[in-house]
């Protein structure tokens, strides 16, 4: 009798346990983040604080162990930063409560709400794609020829920036060509900053007279924004940097050390620093979710994928017409966090993201510029972030801006990745303390 009761109770408790585990599986929902770079890591940190733990499990997938501070790749070639300053273990930045899977992503099946990893399949209720963009040097004929990483370098990868640093240490001078293959590229001002920093670097080494710097761009001017070209072209003259515009590269002539464009214009080089075509990750192509360059069609104000309601895209992986830059990802992350929460509750998404970008531009000799712009508003003059006070000045060179850029590395590792709001910097572009008519401003000066 007693035994019967105990057995009965055990069976009942077993059944209860079984039912509750079933309930757990059916009520727990999965939010999956692909990519633990700047955007993915920020989203994990934001969402772990916002999504109810009893209802949502958060998983992030990235095959790589190391998280690079990519803005540092600009400084690495000039021995301004060391290797240690630009990389850390990625796992350190993934918060507790988020499941971190270090595996290769094989394919996304958006129609079936699942993602195939190298040896398992993960189902999701909401997917955030943060797979970024990377260089695709094989898109240009003979770029990956015998001179690659000997006399031709990229600085958009850790390996490229490091190889270039070693080359520059003993380079004796000649024709330095800084080149952009095609737009869009990650951090569109970086190649120009590279040219400015190169001018400084060779001056400092006492060999500027031995180096001829040419900036070659597929655009019609040095800057991607017309107002910048108006306000800042003097910098090129001041630094004696020659410019070749409207150059659409067709191929590299390794033998004669020159680049050739479709109009048969040639630019000779002794040292070529190129920004190859930038493309979204191959997994986007394998999953049939991208455009020609593997960027995912994304609603530019909500960051929801245009094809699938429960798929969101952030950072360099999107096709939105904003700069591919960490500052943009940072502003996007704030809007996307709100939209994910709204989506889980079945509310309408905020059409909020305005393309806000905020970039420091290193101009060499310990000075920098700061530009602030969005989808509709060109970069403006004025002060940032406080109207009339600054301390940072927009569209003007200053030493303070340079300190700002260097301080940003600390902000990146300690605040930005962890999703801590940067004081006084708002997600949407603020119109306070800014001058919107550059011509009017120029007359004042």
């Amino acid at each position, binding site marked *: 009798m007693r035994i019967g009761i105990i057995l009965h109770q055990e069976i009942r408790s077993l059944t209860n346990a079984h039912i509750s585990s079933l309930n757990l599986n059916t009520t727990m929902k999965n939010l999956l983040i692909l990519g633990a770079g700047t955007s993915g890591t920020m989203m994990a940190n934001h969402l772990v604080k916002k999504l109810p733990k009893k209802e949502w499990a958060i998983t992030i997938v990235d095959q790589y162990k190391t998280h690079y501070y990519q803005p540092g790749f600009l400084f690495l070639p000039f021995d301004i930063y060391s290797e240690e300053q630009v990389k850390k273990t990625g796992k350190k930045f993934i918060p507790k409560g988020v499941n971190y899977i270090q595996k290769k992503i094989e394919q996304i099946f958006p129609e079936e709400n699942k993602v195939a990893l190298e040896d398992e399949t993960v189902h999701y209720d909401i997917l955030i794609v943060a797979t970024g963009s990377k260089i695709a040097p094989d898109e240009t004929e003979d770029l990956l020829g015998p001179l690659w990483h000997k006399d031709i370098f990229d600085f958009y990868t850790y390996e490229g920036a490091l190889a270039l640093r070693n080359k520059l240490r003993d380079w004796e001078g000649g024709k330095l060509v800084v080149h952009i293959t095609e*737009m869009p590229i990650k951090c569109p001002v970086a190649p120009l900053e590279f040219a400015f920093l190169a001018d400084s670097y060779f001056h400092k080494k006492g060999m500027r007279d031995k180096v001829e710097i040419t900036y070659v761009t597929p655009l019609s001017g040095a800057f991607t924004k017309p107002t910048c070209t108006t306000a800042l072209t003097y910098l090129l003259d001041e630094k004696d940097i020659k410019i070749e515009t409207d150059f659409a590269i067709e191929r590299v002539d390794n033998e004669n050390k020159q680049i050739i464009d479709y109009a048969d214009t040639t630019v000779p080089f002794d040292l070529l620093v190129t920004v190859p075509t930038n493309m979204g990750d191959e997994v986007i192509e394998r999953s049939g979710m991208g455009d020609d360059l593997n960027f995912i069609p994304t609603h530019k104000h909500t960051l929801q994928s245009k094809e699938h309601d429960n798929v969101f895209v952030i950072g360099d992986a999107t096709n939105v*017409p904003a*700069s591919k830059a960490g500052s943009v990802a940072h502003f996007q992350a704030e809007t996307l966090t709100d939209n994910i929460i709204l989506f889980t509750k079945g509310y309408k998404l905020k059409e909020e993201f305005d393309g806000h970008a905020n970039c420091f531009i290193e101009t060499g000799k310990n000075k920098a510029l700061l530009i602030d712009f969005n989808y509709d508003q060109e970069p403006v003059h004025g002060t940032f972030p406080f109207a009339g006070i600054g301390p940072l000045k927009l569209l003007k060179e200053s030493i303070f801006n340079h300190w700002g850029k260097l301080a940003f590395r600390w902000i990146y590792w300690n605040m930005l990745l962890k999703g801590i709001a940067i004081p006084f910097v708002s997600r949407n572009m603020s119109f306070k303390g800014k001058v919107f008519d550059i011509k009017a401003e120029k007359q004042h000066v």
Partner: protein
Amino acid sequence: MDLTIAGIRLDVTEEGYLTDVSQWNEEIAKEIAQKEDIELTDKHWEVISWIQEQVKNEVALSIRGIKKSGVLNIKEFYALFPGGPLKKATKIAGVPKPKSCI
């Protein structure tokens, strides 16, 4: 900004791009092309209609996109519109200047 092309008063941008595609006609195209030192051949017209079609379908124009056009290759595109082919061809086609510069 106003500009009179082929006897018609048109709204254009500072760089001379039509702001209203519906104002475009072949005479306007010929005159803009002439200013760019381009004489329009059948191949040019084919490219112009392809460009207009892309813009109508809200497909972003790029040099890369020419590869897939099925109309011509990039080399031919440069030969037809020397200098900045995308800038010139869009101006002649009466469509906005491509925003490939972000």
